[in-house]
Each structure stands twice: as C-alpha cells, then as structure tokens.
C-alpha cells in the first residue's frame, strides 16, 4: 500500500487553500505517457510531489515465465518501446550467457552498430520532447527528421520500425541487406552537422540556459544513493557506463569517450546526451569500416534449455543500465525473469529533484529524466 502523503484530493476548496494539490497526468501533454504526478504547490512553487505509476502495467515479467526463451524476446520490445533494440540485446545476451553460446564477430558488430543507432534514435526522441516541453518546437521536428532516417535503416535490416524483435538467441534473423552499410555511412557522415544544428538552437540559447541551469540538481553522492544510471548519473559526474565497465557485444573493440557532467543539473544532462549522440556516431563509423564478414548465426541449440541457475546480465541502454536477472530451473521457459528497468529507478529521483522548483520546472525535470512509462510500469 502506497503511503498517501496528501490526504484525499478535493477535500478543500480552491479558495480557502494556500496549498493546492494538483494532478499532473496521467493525461497531461508532457508527462511522457501515463505518468501521474500529484503536486502539492504553493502558488507556483512545488512543495512536494508524488509519482503514481502503474497505469501501463502489463505484467511482462509474469508473461515471460510462461513463454519459451525464444518467444520471450518480442515482449521486451514493448517495455522500453523507444529503444527496442537495446532491450533485445540485453535479454538475448543474457540467455546466450546462460547457454554459453559463442556469437560470431559479425553478429557482435551488427548488434553493436544497431544498438548505437537505437541509442541515437532514443536520444533524439528525448531531445525532441524535452525541447518541446520547454517550448522550442522546431527542435522537435528537426530531431524527428533524423530519427525517421534511423527508423528507415531499422526497417531495412529488421523489417520493423518500433517494436523490432531485432536479435535472435545465438545470432541474427538475417544478414544486412545489400547496400546497407553505404546507407549507414551516408547517415553517419551527415549526422554531426545535424547535431550542430540542434546545438545551435539550444546550447547557447539564453532562454534554454535559464530554463535548464541549476534545475533539478543531483550531486554525485545523491545520484549514487538513488542508484541512478545512464545520463542522469553521468550528468552528475560519476563515470559509470556499462559499455566501459563490463564491455559486452563488441564494445571493447572501439574507441569512444564517456561524456560527464559537472553540476548534475538539467543542462549538464542535456550536454551529456548530446555528446553521447556524437560518440555513438563515432562507434557506428568504426563499425562500418571494420565490419567483419562471416556467419550470422552462432551454435545455439534448437530447443533452448539453459542449465539450472541464476544469471544477471546488464547492458547500457540509452536511458541507463538495463539488466536482466533470469532464474532457470532447466526448463524451456524461465522460472523468473526480472528486468532492472533504468527509468523506473531513475524516476525515484523526481521527488527529490522537483522540491522547491516551480511548476514549469517539473516539466523540464520529467523531460530530463527521460522516462518511458512502458518500462517504468512493465
């Protein structure tokens, strides 16, 4: 039972109350899905906030217990539906780890490349909505323009755009289509200029600075205490990225930097994500030039029955550390499959971050956390 911090809503009339309880969401234009935040405000200042989640709960973890490992993969397209490829990667690699399957290098490279494309697409969507929330509507459409190109690439190689079912246990469904790498290179070469374009509209914009600097500050210690991961953690200056800390797929082969923030405010998190897009692009370019040839399928058994045991594998999703904890009893379906959803855990920081800010900042802070309710509620 959730602690009710405000008492029942609607007890007092608007006129008599100095403090007003307002309900932001679940049908609010900028709570990014069905997040509901109960705000206790005094004038425009937020005194307290409480997240009410669960509107999009679909029981993914429970469903997966009744599916074979192969059948389970597409369910993870639908947790963080903005970054389906990353989700697939985490689950597929976890099962491969359970089985001890070696995956051919070409598969590793393709997986890395597509995951980085997905990271860019996810960050673009974040940038678009975050900027729109703060009122810069043109950035929204610019970012969607590039995201569309990435989705087209996804469609070319996986056959779908949003819920992709990208990877199979042990390899890939099919090889890259003819001319795909050229298309990737074309996108990748032009992408830097597009990022410059977004930055031109925002990074030094006086209004943008005023709206994001010193908003929702989280110190490094607090970020660790709240177990934040991903850009919210790195924005506070903590150098932790699963891609470097525990390299998976082919990340050990590539040169890339982990951008870090200093102040842990919304602006730093913005800079971190924008720089991450550039770094992802760097990884993609290295993938394209060094793409090995060879098989696209490893030696995975036809019927997947991992040995008894508990396994955990995590990847760096666009929004933070995305982990899969799977308990196997030796059968064809997992006994338990627990997801470590980065946005669910990052969302905890909301209450701490919004206290003392204004209503308008709540929107900026929800944006900067980059939540996806499909993943928060699962």
């Amino acid at each position: 039972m959730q602690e009710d911090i405000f008492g029942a809503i609607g007890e007092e009339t608007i006129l008599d109350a100095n403090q007003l309880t307002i309900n932001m969401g679940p049908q609010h234009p900028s709570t990014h899905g069905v997040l509901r935040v109960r705000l206790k405000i005094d004038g425009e200042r937020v005194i307290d906030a409480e997240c009410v989640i669960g509107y999009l709960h679909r029981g993914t973890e429970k469903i997966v217990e009744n599916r074979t490992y192969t059948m389970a993969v597409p369910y993870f397209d639908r947790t963080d539906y903005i970054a389906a490829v990353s989700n697939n990667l985490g689950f597929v690699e976890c099962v491969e780890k359970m089985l001890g399957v070696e995956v051919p290098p070409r598969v590793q490279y393709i997986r890395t490349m597509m995951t980085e494309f997905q990271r860019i697409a996810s960050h673009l969507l974040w940038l678009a909505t975050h900027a729109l929330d703060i009122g810069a509507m043109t950035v929204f459409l610019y970012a969607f323009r590039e995201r569309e190109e990435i989705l087209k690439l996804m469609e070319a190689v996986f056959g779908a755009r949003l819920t992709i079912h990208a990877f199979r246990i042990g390899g890939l469904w099919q090889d890259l289509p003819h001319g795909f790498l050229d298309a990737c290179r074309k996108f990748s070469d032009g992408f830097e200029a597009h990022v410059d374009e977004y930055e031109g509209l925002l990074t030094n914009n006086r209004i943008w600075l005023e709206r994001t600097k010193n908003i929702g500050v989280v110190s490094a210690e607090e970020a660790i205490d709240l177990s934040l991961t991903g850009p919210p953690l790195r924005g506070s200056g903590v150098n932790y990225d699963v891609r470097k800390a525990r390299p998976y797929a082919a990340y050990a082969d590539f040169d890339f930097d982990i951008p870090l923030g200093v102040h842990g405010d919304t602006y730093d998190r913005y800079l971190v994500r924008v720089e991450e897009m550039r770094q992802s692009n760097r990884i993609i370019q290295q993938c394209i030039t060094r793409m090995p040839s060879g098989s696209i399928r490893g030696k995975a058994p036809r019927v997947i029955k991992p040995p008894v045991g508990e396994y955990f594998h995590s990847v760096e999703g666009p929004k933070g550390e995305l982990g899969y904890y799977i308990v196997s009893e030796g059968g064809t379906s997992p006994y338990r499959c627990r997801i470590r959803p980065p946005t669910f855990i990052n969302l905890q920081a909301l209450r701490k971050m919004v206290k003392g800010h204004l209503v308008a900042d709540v929107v900026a802070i929800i944006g900067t956390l980059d939540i996806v309710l499909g993943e928060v509620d699962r």
Partner: protein
Amino acid sequence: MNAWQILINYAVIPLVKIAVIVGILSGGIAYLTLLERKVIARLQQRLGPMRVGWHGILQPIADGLKFIIKEDVIPLKADKFVFTIAPAISLIPAFVVFAVIPFGPPDSLWGTGGYVTDINIGLLFVVAVSSVGVLGIILGGWASNSKYPLLGALRSTAQMVSYEVAMGFAIIGVLLVANSLSLVDIVQKQKTMGLWFFFVQPVSFLVYYACGMAETNRLPFDLPEAETELVGGFHTEYSGFRFSLYFIAEYANMITVSSLAVTLFFGGWLRPFPNVAALAFLDLIPPPLWFTIKVLTFLYVFIWVRGTLPRFRFDQLMNIGWKVFLPVAMANVIVTSAVLLSFL
C-alpha cells in the same frame, strides 16, 4: 450642415468603414493562422496544411466551420454567466482598437480619412482598451472553476499587468518626440521629420515589441497557456466556438501590436523615406498597402520567434519585465526628455 449630411458624416461613413475593417480583420485573422502554419512548417522543413484547397488555402474556413459545429461544453461547476461572456470580453477590445489606427492619410478615401476616427487621445485609447482584454482571460480562467485554468489566469494577470507598465513607458518615448496622442498626428509628424521614429527611438521600439509579445501571450512569453505545463492554461476548459473566440482574440492582438508598432515607429502608411523625392515611384503602392506590408513583416517576426525560441519560466519572465524592460524604458524616457529639453 443639414440633417442628411450629419447622418452621412457621423453614421453612414463610419459604419461602412467599421464594416470593412471588421471584415478585413476577420479575414486577416483567419489567414494569419494559415500564414503561421505555413511559415512554421517552412522553418521546420515540412509542408503545413495541404489538403483543403490548393496548398491548404481553404484551411481557415474548414477550421472555422469545425469550431462552430463543435459541441459547446460548459463545465458543471463553472460560473455559467462569466464563463459564457469571458471570451467576448477578450475579443471585443481586440477589435475596438482598430477604430483609431490609421491605414491611410487624412485626405484619402474621398477626404474622409483612412481611419474610422481620429481622436486626440488615440494612443491612450489603444492602451486603455487593449488592457481590458486581459480581464477576459482572468475571468475565463476563474470561471472555469478548475485548477489548471486558475493557474493560467493567475499567470496572465501578473504577466499582463507588469508588461503593460513597461509598454506604457516605451510608448511615452514616442509621445515626447511626436508631441501628440493622436495616431494620425504621430504619423504626420514622422512625415514632416522625414524620419521614422524607429530611428529616433530604437530602444523604445525594442521594449515595446518585446512587451507586445508578452501582451499577446506569444512565445517566448506564452506562459498563460503554456500547453506543456498547464495543459491549455486559461482556456483548458473551453471548447468549440468559445475557444475560437480566445483564439481569434490572440491573433487580433498580434495584429494590433504589429499595427501599433508600424504606426508609432515605422511611419504607418508612409513609404520609406517619405521626403526623398528620388523615391517617389514608391508612391505607386497606395498607402494602405504600405501599411499592410509593414504589418505583415511584424507578424512574420512573431511567427519566426515562435519557431525559434523556447519558453521563459514564470519568475524569469517577471524578472525581465520588472528588472530589465521597465528600467530601460524609464531611462529612455528620461534621456529623451533631457535631450528634447536641452537641444530643441
């Protein structure tokens, strides 16, 4: 003067002019929405409305129809009377202001003057009437009896009141130079000086235009209706035709602010460099058209700004209003008066 002449001079001619202006203005507002959508679409590399008519040319008509045939929802707990009339309170002043804005010289239109009326306190009239429009927003937000509209209404009260002050001071700069409150006289003065007041009072213009954006609730100052924060702000509970009245009022105010900017700072109906004989060929374009071209330029800037900038936060907006615009405008008034006193 016999009775017929009086009737014609004081009833028929003004009524005809009013009808024409209201007609042009309504059409202008309708097509301003289309212009806005097209320009923003252009900035954002898309097409904008394309389906209704050639390149969406009939889109405003379709929109208007949609507003009219929509259900008119009045919330159960709303104050019905205030809720009903609030949009009209917002809309009417936006139109009334045009009574004194001159579109052409006094000798145009067969000697009746290119305006509905030329009163000697024209500018004061504009400032006074346009501030009544704020009431509509406050009342609308209040009467909805709902939280988001109330917040929107509170914001708009604070915002409009504070920006009106700075705007008033900005206008005083022009008054000092023009020595008249009549808008016609102000334009005439720019002709005799041979110089648009923008070149005399640039600071005053910048403050005026920025405050104008705040007055009309446009980005980057569109806090009363900040859709991503307050859902719809003061008009959250409004739908259908009543909503469209607010909408029309906002666009009419954009035209008002632009027209006033043109009249006060950019020579109204005058062509550029009104006293340079070499440019006399510019007179081929009639004065009302010059006026329209200038107004359209300013409207374009409104739209351009919307496509480019993010939104201020409420407290930042207040800071800018009181701590930047107001002192600057006051300093401008003092400097202008000092210069006028000592040199002229």
